[in-house]
């Protein structure tokens, strides 16, 4: 079973990202589950969301403490939160930042998702962009399934734009 943790701020769509990833895995023929960290956070506050992916039906209902992957949607979170908490040794972490960051002991990937989002979507909403990067980095889901999952999460036009944004990020990170 693969476990992924998303870090974001309330309103940035971390929960939606976790759900889209779960959908994408399902379209790949796998079983999946996604859930938010059940907090009391409001818009702007740090939030977490989780995805589990497995080849068999997922029955586990506890929270995720030792993820295989971590996704960080907002670089400012790095200052206040231990984003690598519990991350498995050598685990991959994908961070939205325009800086070159390396986190000791982990496979760190960076992408300026805000820039991509502004360019493709015209909005600084990074959740689909960073999912594209995550897909490129990990290969845990296929880019086609990710795009499909994005398309059926948003209304038609918005879905197309977001799928495009994910693909741009996917290609960018692949080329690195």
């Amino acid at each position, binding site marked *: 079973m693969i476990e992924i943790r998303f870090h974001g701020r309330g309103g940035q769509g971390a929960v939606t990202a976790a*759900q889209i990833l*779960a*959908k994408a895995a*399902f379209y790949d023929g796998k*079983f*999946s*589950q*996604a*859930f*938010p960290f*059940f907090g*009391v956070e409001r818009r702007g506050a740090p939030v977490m969301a989780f995805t589990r992916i497995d080849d068999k039906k*997922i*029955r*586990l*209902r*506890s*929270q995720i*403490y030792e993820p295989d992957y971590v996704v960080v949607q907002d670089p400012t979170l790095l200052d206040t939160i231990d984003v690598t908490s519990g991350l498995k040794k050598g685990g991959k972490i994908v961070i939205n930042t325009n800086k070159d960051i390396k986190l000791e002991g982990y496979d760190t990937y960076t992408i300026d998702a805000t820039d991509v989002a502004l360019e493709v979507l015209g909005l600084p909403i990074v959740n689909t962009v960073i999912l594209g990067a995550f897909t490129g980095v990990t290969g845990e889901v296929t880019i086609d399934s990710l795009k499909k999952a994005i398309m059926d999460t948003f209304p038609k036009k918005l879905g197309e734009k977001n799928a495009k944004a994910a693909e741009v990020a996917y290609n960018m990170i692949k080329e690195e």
Partner: protein
Amino acid sequence: MSKVKIITGTSAAAEAARLCDVDVISAYPITPQTTCVEKLAEFVANGELDAEFIKVESEHSAISACIGASATGARTFTATSSQGLALMHEVLFIASGMRLPIVMMNANRALSAPINIWNDQQDSISQRDTGWIQIYAADNQETLDSIIQAFKIAENEKVLLPVMVNLDGFILTHTVEPVELPDEEEVRDFVGIYEPKHAYLDPDRPITQGPVGVPSCYMESKYNVQNAMNNAEKVIMDVNEEFAKKFGRKYGNGLIETYNIENAETVLVAMGSVCGTIKEVIDDLKQEGKEYGLLRIRTYRPLPINHIREALKNAKNIAILDKDITFGMNKGAVYTDLAGFLKDKKTTNYIVGLGGRDIRQDDIKEIMKHAEKAEDGETKWMGLKEQ
């Protein structure tokens, strides 16, 4: 055509109500149920469900309007959680006493104070004696399937009791996972149309519903409810079978579900989503050559006493998990219910997951180990921090 969607538990509940073509919905928002009524409001607003949605000003009015609607002959659905369910309390007795087959989704959440929006089962457990059938779902698929079954159970002429389908707050309500949505036509064929013979208000048949139950009739009236509960046991099993035949899924015998119980001396008894985690642990330990079993109580009311006793007949150590507490007794309600008819067994009670305290696999392992050795019968509060 059935189709699989990745949806939350509350969406699954809303989808079930839509598939059952409910006539009247009356509900009030409360975390973590809210997304269910939002979804239903959306269905009605988009014409995907032809129903009247009464946007009441409280849960008390929600269930009261449900009674009015059901007593007029409409298929009626509501949803709530925690404080909302507690606010409904007095009216819940009235729904069962009037024999109205209302179906409710309850998102299990802790009760104040301190205020807490997270999961435990104190809310529905506290409504144990209201005469409602109580089903506890273990995942989102079961939530959807149970609500469909609930209408068929509730509206059965031998039953005619309201049904509460419980799902763990956040753990299921806010988790997305694959859920198969059965074909609408097939569901409607399965549940049929609600055509009450006993209770409906019609000027051409002026009946009096909810009269004064004088001492000469009150006991009989309540005995009727108990009889209906007795009948419900078989009806729930039959509906579970019938559902399996039509839709290919079943939940134990409808009343209880067992897992690896035949190989195990130590058996855990639990309700709701934690059973998934327990199964996972059982499978892990099996690989290490250790055998543990699970008895999941799916139907808490009627409590299937004979089925539980039979399932546990070979168990040596019985660990009963409660997401609730009976203050002043230091036991959970499930434990106190079961202890009465498992007198010859060694039973230990574990209070778990109150107010959203996560139940980890390690907690389950600890319970298993503890139950094997426990002698004193003391209740153990799992994960309690030192004060």
